[in-house]
Structures are given as C-alpha cells and as structure tokens.
C-alpha cells in the first residue's frame, strides 16, 4: 500500500470504509436505478463530483478506487460517500465503457434531476479532467465527451488552476485565486509529507498563506480539487515532494532556529534583534537625515545579522549540522530575518517613509502630477501599445495592494514581476501585430497604469525594495524592472506638462539609478568579501564549470591551492594540472608562488571585474604572457611545483 492511499486524518477512516461498503452494494434511491457507471463523490461541502469510469479505466491502477479516494463525508446520512451504479466489476471491465458514455445519471437528494442532469454532470466531468490536464501529468485524455465543453462550464477554480489563464477565457473572477493557493491546498489535503513542509514552511510560503487570508478564500473549491485528483497526479507530486523534502526540511530547521533565536532575548542574536526592533519602534527611525539612510541602516542590520548567523556557531549550537552544507544558508537566513525584523517594522518604516516624503514634497508632487496625467490621452502619455482594461486594472490594483502589504522585499519583487507580466499581456492583447510590443513600449504603459491608481504607496514600495532587497537579488529581471518602475515614478514625480512625454527613462533618473546601483552593488561586493574572505571558487577544466569552494587564505600560494584542488577533484597526476586565471576570455597559468586571493583582490580593485580561477590540464589553450598591468605572476609557466 502506498502512503498516499492511507487515509490522512483519523476521521477519514470510517468514511473510506463506508465508501468501500457502499461500492459493494448497489443500493440507491429507486428512482435513480438507471444504467450508469459513473461514480459520484460527495465532498464535505456538499458539492458533487462525478468520476467518469472511463477515466478510471484509462488512468487508474486497479486498486485506485478502493483506497485512495480523498476525504469524503458520511456525516450526512442522506449522502453516500461513493456510489457506483454498477458495482466494481463494471469498472474493471472495458466492455462497460460504452455504457459509461451515456451514463452519469445519478444524483444525490436535492440535486437537480433529469433534464439538467446531463449538463451538470458534463460540467463535473470537465472539472474532473481539467486538473489532470493542466497539470500535464496524466496520459492523454479519455474518450472525448459527447459534446464539446461549453463556455459556461468554466468554473473559477478551473481558471485558477492554470496560473496565467488568458484574459479572454477567464470570466474575470476578480479575487486572486492563484495557482499557489490551489497547489498548497492540493498538497495540504492530499499529501502528508509535503503538507508538513508546506504548513511549517519556509517563511515565503507562509507569506503566501498570509496574503491569501486577506483575499476572499474559497474553501469549498479546495475540497473539490482534492476529490478529483488521480493517483498519478499524487504519485508525481509525491516523488517531487520526497526529493525536495530533505533539502527543504533542513532549510526549515535553519529557518525555525533563526526565529527561535531571534525571539529569545537571552540569546545573543535575540538581544540584537529585539533591541533593534524596539529601538526603531521607539522612534529610532526618525533621527535619520533621509529616508535612504533609514532604509540603509535596516539593510545593514539585516546583512550584519546574516553575516553573524552564517559565521558564528550560534546557529549551529542548538541543532544538527551537516545538511546545512548543501543549502544556500545565506538566503535561508535572509528570509528568516525578514520575518524577525521587517515584519514587526514594516508599518513603522512606511509611516516614516511617508513622513520623509511629506516633508520633502514628493508626496504632494506625485498627487498633483497624477491628477494632471490622468486627464491626458494615451497619445499624450506616449502609449503605443494596448493598455489594461477595467477588469485588468482591477486585478493589477489588487496585486499592487498585496505588494504594498507585504513586508518581505523578495515577496514584493515577485508581485512586482507579476504586475509587469500582466502589463505585457495587456499591451499585446488585441494588438493584432506580428511583433509583440516589447520593453520600449513598456514604460508609457506602466506610467499610464500607475497614475490610474494611487501612486504614493507604489513610490514607497519601490523605495523600500530598492534599499532593502538583498544585493544579490538586484541582478537580473527583478533589478531591471525595479529600476524601470523607479524611472516611471521619477517621471511622474518630475512631470512637466510643457515637455513632451518621453518613452525612455530620463537622463536624471538614469543618473540616480546608476548611483544607486553603484552604491548597492559595491555594498554587495563588500558583504560578499566579508563573509567569504577565505573562500575561493575554483572551476574545473572550464570556467564556471563544476565549481568548488576552496578555503584560500590571503597569502596562500597557487602551488598550495593546486594541492587542495587535486585532492578536491581527485586528480591522480597533479603535476600535469595547473591553476589558471581566466579573464576577458584569456587564460593564464599562475606560477606556483603567486597568491590567488591577492591577485583577485587586486584585480577587483583595479578593474572592478570579477575573475575566474580554473584548475585544468596544462598546455591547453592558455595564452602566453601579455603585458596587462597590475597583474603579477601572469607569465605562462610550466614549472609548477605542484
């Protein structure tokens, strides 16, 4: 018996048995004794699901039905948990399938009868299949239904199942019922190990859950989903789940440990966290000269605590070690610290930010310019692409609301990217162009969208993210769109009706962005160097391939590093390997007495670029010495003592 076939909650056990009993008998209300081989599941909230036996014949293991039906309820005696009309034999006989096509007549008491029965059951059947389809784990669909699905058969959770349902087909359910919700409910209901990690969770998952409590939750949909899962879906999920759970549980342990420590004022970290939070809440934020400095101090505190937790033994002291090696300890600690610091401070920080910008007049300017810009035509705003329509705007506003409420910069980033995605969709909707609108058309659409709502909270959010995001996060898409949003807000804040609307970020805004980027990334490099002062990442054979972290103190020579590498990579003939410095697509063998850390530090200082160290076979493709300045020991040499 596989684990997922075991009833999950004790209270389900009698239900499952009841279901089995009912299956054996063919008892049912007399008026419904019609030839059919549908199986009907009545779930907790009274919603009915009908499982097409064809589906079972095609998709199921033989014992699927007997064991794995998810939580059903018999509390209401009027409803039977599971009622196959023809008994089990029919289910297993392929001959019964044709009957199955025309069947699906049975309904519980109080449900609509005859006339609308078939359409209702079709709807259910559709419902039943869609999860398997969209999760794309099931084999090809069973025989097609007699009629094609009608548009009105869309149900909210069908749309919700597919994360980015096309706007045209989704009947605009404005509440954000998201994929993550479906997923978590799916896991939570159906799968114990995964549910465990989901409910205890790393904080980001909890964040999700928190956000959803605000949204109109639809618990009834959850049950129905679970009721229609096939064992195959469960199987796939469980495989993925067990593969992940090892790593995730280690992460969760670290995350919980950080939070424990932070809440315990007696611990060193707890003392730091509690006194910092108390300090800021008691008005400590007000003493800063600017909003940027206030946020910088908070970011610095997060980085410091992260550094301390990663470096000191305090985190290890309470728990098991070993598996922390595999995970990205820094990012797990970072996420936990958001919870310890930013969650309690968020409201205070926002109030203070608003204070700063009320004083410097930015708030006023944004308000005024927003009012002006709302009255302008799309052409005046420079918009060439499509813009979000009413319902789309509402959905975007809902996302922006969640973004504003979130305290984790990471979570905010995710939501910001979702809004960007929605904007791109709106831009290209009904455009009928061969080429979709791209990044150049994005800024005016973003400006248009932002002035439709309240700009001030967005301004605060963007500032909050720009200063508090982990510097490592600033690379890539998140950083790019964050600066685009900054550019849009800068434009709104400094809008002058006389000047023509630009479709690009203004020079002034760009300059500010550059300064910011420099500040934050230099900062990042410092932090990076600090935490890993002795670690050198060395690739094997190819740059950035098979990298290993090797502890290399500042004065350790290349020869000693080679010895360490030979051991780490299990090289039998170390003499034929050497340590190479790869930079700007040139590769140079380092002499045995040079110091890789020193070289790296010098290059970082003189050129500001990062370099790559590669341990590889000598005599392959390295360049002869060239006269690059400030680079000692760059001559190619073959007398490596290692």
């Amino acid at each position, binding site marked *: 018996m596989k684990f997922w076939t075991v009833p999950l909650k004790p209270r389900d056990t009698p239900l499952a048995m009841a279901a089995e009993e009912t299956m054996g008998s063919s008892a049912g209300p007399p008026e419904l004794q019609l030839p059919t081989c549908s199986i009907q599941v009545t779930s907790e909230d009274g919603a009915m699901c009908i499982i097409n036996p064809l589906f079972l014949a095609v998709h199921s293991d033989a014992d699927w039905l007997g064991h794995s039906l998810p939580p059903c309820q018999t509390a209401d005696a009027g409803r039977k948990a599971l009622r196959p009309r023809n008994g089990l034999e029919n289910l297993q006989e392929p001959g019964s399938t044709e009957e199955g096509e025309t069947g699906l007549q049975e309904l519980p008491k109080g449900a609509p009868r005859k006339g609308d029965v078939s359409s209702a059951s079709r709807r259910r059947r559709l419902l039943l299949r869609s999860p398997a389809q969209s999760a794309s784990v099931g084999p090809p669909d069973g025989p097609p239904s007699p009629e094609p699905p009608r548009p009105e058969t869309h149900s909210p959770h069908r749309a919700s199942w597919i994360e980015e349902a096309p706007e045209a087909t989704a009947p605009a359910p404005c509440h954000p019922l998201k994929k993550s919700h479906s997923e978590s409910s799916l896991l939570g209901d159906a799968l114990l190990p995964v549910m465990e990690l989901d409910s205890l969770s790393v904080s980001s998952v909890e964040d999700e859950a928190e956000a959803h409590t605000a949204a109109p939750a639809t618990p009834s949909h959850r049950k129905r989903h679970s009721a229609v899962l096939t064992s195959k879906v469960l199987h796939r999920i469980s495989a993925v789940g067990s593969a992940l759970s090892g790593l995730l549980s280690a992460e969760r342990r670290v995350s919980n440990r950080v939070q424990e420590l932070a809440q315990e004022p007696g611990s060193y970290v707890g003392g730091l966290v509690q006194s910092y939070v108390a300090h800021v809440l008691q008005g400590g934020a007000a003493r800063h000269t600017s909003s940027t400095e206030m946020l910088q101090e908070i970011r610095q505190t997060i980085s410091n605590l992260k550094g301390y937790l990663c*470096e000191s033994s305090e985190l290890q002291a309470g728990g098991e070690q070993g598996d922390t090696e595999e995970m990205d300890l820094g990012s797990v600690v970072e996420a936990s610290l958001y919870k310890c610091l930013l969650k309690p401070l968020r409201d205070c920080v926002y109030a203070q930010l608003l204070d700063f910008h009320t004083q410097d007049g930015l708030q006023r300017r944004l308000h005024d310019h927003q009012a002006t810009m709302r009255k302008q035509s799309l052409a005046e705003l420079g918009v060439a692409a499509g813009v979000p329509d009413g319902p789309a705007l509402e959905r975007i506003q809902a996302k922006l609301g969640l973004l504003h409420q979130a305290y984790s910069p990471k979570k905010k980033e995710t939501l910001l990217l979702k809004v960007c995605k929605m904007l791109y969709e709106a831009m290209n909707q009904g455009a009928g162009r061969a080429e979709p609108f791209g990044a150049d058309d994005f800024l005016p659409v973003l400006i248009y969208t932002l002035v439709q709502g309240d700009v001030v909270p967005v301004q605060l959010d963007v500032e909050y993210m720009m200063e508090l995001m982990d510097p490592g996060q600033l690379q890539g898409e998140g950083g790019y769109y964050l600066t685009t949003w900054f550019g849009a807000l800068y434009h709104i804040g400094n809008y002058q009706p006389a000047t023509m609307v630009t479709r690009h970020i203004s020079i002034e805004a760009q300059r500010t962005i550059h300064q910011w980027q420099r500040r934050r990334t230099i900062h990042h490099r410092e932090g990076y160097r600090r935490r890993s002062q002795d670690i050198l990442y060395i690739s094997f054979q190819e740059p950035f391939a098979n990298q290993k972290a090797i502890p290399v103190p500042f004065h350790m020579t290349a020869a000693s590093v080679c010895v360490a590498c030979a051991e780490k990579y299990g090289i039998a003939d170390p003499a034929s390997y050497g340590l190479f410095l790869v930079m700007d697509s040139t590769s140079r063998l380092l002499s045995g007495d040079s110091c890789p850390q020193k070289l790296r530090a010098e290059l970082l200082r003189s050129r500001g670029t990062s370099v790559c160290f590669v341990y590889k076979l000598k005599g392959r493709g390295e360049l002869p010495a060239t006269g690059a300045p400030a680079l000692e020991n760059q001559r190619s040499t073959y007398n490596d003592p290692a």
Partner: protein
Amino acid sequence: MALRELKVCLLGDTGVGKSSIVWRFVEDSFDPNINPTIGASFMTKTVQYQNELHKFLIWDTAGQERFRALAPMYYRGSAAAIIVYDITKEETFSTLKNWVKELRQHGPPNIVVAIAGNKCDLNDVREVMEKDAKDYADSIHAIFVETSAKNAININELFIEISRRIPLTDTNPSSSGKGFKLRRQPSVTKRSCC
C-alpha cells in the same frame, strides 16, 4: 585545534578610523575615501593564537552621533571593546573617556577594553600626547596602542593583545565557551554562506 569565538566591538568618535582598522585587520587593505558607517558593520577574521584558533566576530559601530543609541546593542554581548581615538584630534580623546564611562556603567562587567590611538602616521599634527593616553589607559587597566590603519602599524598587535587578555580575564563561560560546541565540525573554515 580548538576554535574560540571572540566578539569584539569598536567604539569611538566619527572619523577616527574604526572601519579602517577593521578593514586593515580583516582584508589588509586601506581605502582613504571610505564612507561613514551606517548603523554598524560586521566582519570576521580567524587567527591562530598559540594552540587555538581565535575567530574574531567584529562589530564596527557607526561613530556619528545619531547612531549612538545603537551602540549598546553591540557592546552588550562583547568580550572586548576597542575604543578608538584620533591622535590629531583632542576632542576624540574626550569622547573616548565618555565611552569608557558608559562601558563601566552599562557594559558587561568583564569586558576587555583596548584603547587605540589611530593615525599615528600623522605625528606632525598630533594633539594627544602618547604618554597622557598611556597613563589614562593604565589607570583603567586597558590595553593601549597607537596604531595606523593606513601604514598597517600595530593593527595585528592590537588584536593579538586582545586574544591574550580574553582567556585570562574572561571568567564568564557563556561568552567564550560557545566555540567548543563546534568540536563536532571537522573543519573550521568550511562553512560559507554563498
């Protein structure tokens, strides 16, 4: 080899060179255009001391007045405090005396105090006599050195002296004993967070 974690914080007026001292110690580098510290910054460095490894967990606090309220956070749990003044600015020495008073009142009872007179390479414009500072340090049983982060003078010596003092004076097992829990770990440098 046993690993011992030593929490050290740096205190002192703005611009006296706290961060430069830490930078020199940790990275062996010096940047004349360093920005003022915001809040505090954290760094570590592991050095061998006799038959032990000493891992310094260093809290470099901001010297500017508006960050002063944060300092107790950092010195409260520290085994040692390095109070830095600038030998070319008399008033930074007065600030130092205030820090000593504050530590006596609110700091941990057994905290090791070290006094560093930084910028000793600028002897020409000296305002604080070495002897005065030395006498004061002796009167409060503090370590005393004149340092230059710029020229790498007495920086390592300062930390070695702290290493030497802490095991002798520290009777509180909670602040230094934590390191022994690491014994299960095969290596002390293998952990990295990125």
